[in-house]
């Protein structure tokens, strides 16, 4: 594996700002991004990713391979929580195990974007349908997580939970809704629509991402500090799950015969964990689960691991595999 890849990845402004934020927390600087701004930056990113993805989709033809990739992506999002749950249940209460499992079944949009930047920087192409894959991977994990909690511990889920509620949590969740809505609007309005919004959602995207990652660095370092007190097992899980799931993603991509670019994106989707949509849904529907477990794991461990080490690592593996066969 090529250490240059890791270095190049680390030396990009988004990653460096993430590290600057983490440093600010560790050195106890009083740097802070106002909460409403941070929330807006994340709305902006979802809005921009959605529109961009929708526009890409409007150009791509629906081949059977594309459909297969989408189905497989949704499938992994539904299956990953299953084994994660049973492994986590050995040590943790049902509610916590289910919430963490759902978190790891789902995806991190910002990890995905970082992988896209990585591919762009190396001039490697990838399919426009991968954003759709990402958008479709949020909901199945939420549904499976809730069902697991409800099956193994009735009291752990919110009383008002019905099947209707279930659909609602997984699709009307603000992050999922904005992402899917923007995707559909991008698809419906095609090139004409894209031309009007492009100067707002495309050109400044990377810069906004830097500021967002600065904030994520601030937060991730705080969460990591919180997590230390809970013991090291969960930290290990957060890294092992990332790598194992990414390998699964790579394996599946190989079987489907995708391009190396699509393979990296699939690896990153399968290997990443949600820290916006799923935590918000879990807080509502599995209130017994402790948010200071599932959030810090995905935000403080898996996320930094993936964007700093994971992406170049997975890509090195993909290069090796795609070459040999």
């Amino acid at each position: 594996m090529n250490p240059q890849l890791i270095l190049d990845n680390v030396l990009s402004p988004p990653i460096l700002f993430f590290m600057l934020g983490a440093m600010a927390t560790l050195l106890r600087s009083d740097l802070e991004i106002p909460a409403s701004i941070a929330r807006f930056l994340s709305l902006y990113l979802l809005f921009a990713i959605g529109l961009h993805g929708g526009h890409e989709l409007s150009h791509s033809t629906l081949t059977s391979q594309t459909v297969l990739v989408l189905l497989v992506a949704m499938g992994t999002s539904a299956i990953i929580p299953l084994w994660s749950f049973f492994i986590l249940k050995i040590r943790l209460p049902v509610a916590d195990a289910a919430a963490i499992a759902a978190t790891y079944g789902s995806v991190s949009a910002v990890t995905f974007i970082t992988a896209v930047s990585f591919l762009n920087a190396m001039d490697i192409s990838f399919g426009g349908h991968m954003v759709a894959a990402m958008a479709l991977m949020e909901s199945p994990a939420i549904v499976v997580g809730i069902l697991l909690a409800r099956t193994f511990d009735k009291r752990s889920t919110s009383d008002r939970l019905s099947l209707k509620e279930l659909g609602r949590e997984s699709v009307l969740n603000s992050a999922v809704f904005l992402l899917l809505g923007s995707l559909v609007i991008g698809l419906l309005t095609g090139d004409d629509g894209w031309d009007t919004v492009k100067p707002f959602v495309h050109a400044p995207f990377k810069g906004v991402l830097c500021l967002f990652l600065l904030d994520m660095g601030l937060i991730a370092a705080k969460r990591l500090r919180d997590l230390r007190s809970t013991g090291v097992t969960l930290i290990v899980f957060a890294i092992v799950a990332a790598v194992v799931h990414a390998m699964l993603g790579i394996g599946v991509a190989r079987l489907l015969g995708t391009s190396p670019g699509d393979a990296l994106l699939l690896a990153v989707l399968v290997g990443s964990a949600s820290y916006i949509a799923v935590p918000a849904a879990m807080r509502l529907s599995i209130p017994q689960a402790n948010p200071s477990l599932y959030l810090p794991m995905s935000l403080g461990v898996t996320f930094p691991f993936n964007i700093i080490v994971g992406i170049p690592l997975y890509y090195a593996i993909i290069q090796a595999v795609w070459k040999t066969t």
Partner: protein
Amino acid sequence: MTPIKRMEIVIDATHTPDLIDAIRAQGVAGYTVFRDVQGAGDRGVRRNDDPAGISGNCCVLIACEPGEMMKVVEAVRPLLETHGGMCLVSDAQWLKH
């Protein structure tokens, strides 16, 4: 001015709508909500800083008739049991206007 019960409830921002539904169901039509409140308690520090918006609290202030107080408390209790938070009750005078 008339005597009144002053309740203040700190709860997870995520569950504030449920709290408001619960007190409305008891016939309480007046309340005030302070958003983006941080804090610490049994469940650790809540910094109101994560992008999922699940680490913030809200504080809800309710002025209600002394007679209504207990039923509001009972409506609030199960939510605090599940989600954590706190509820303080004190005496105050309400300015009739």
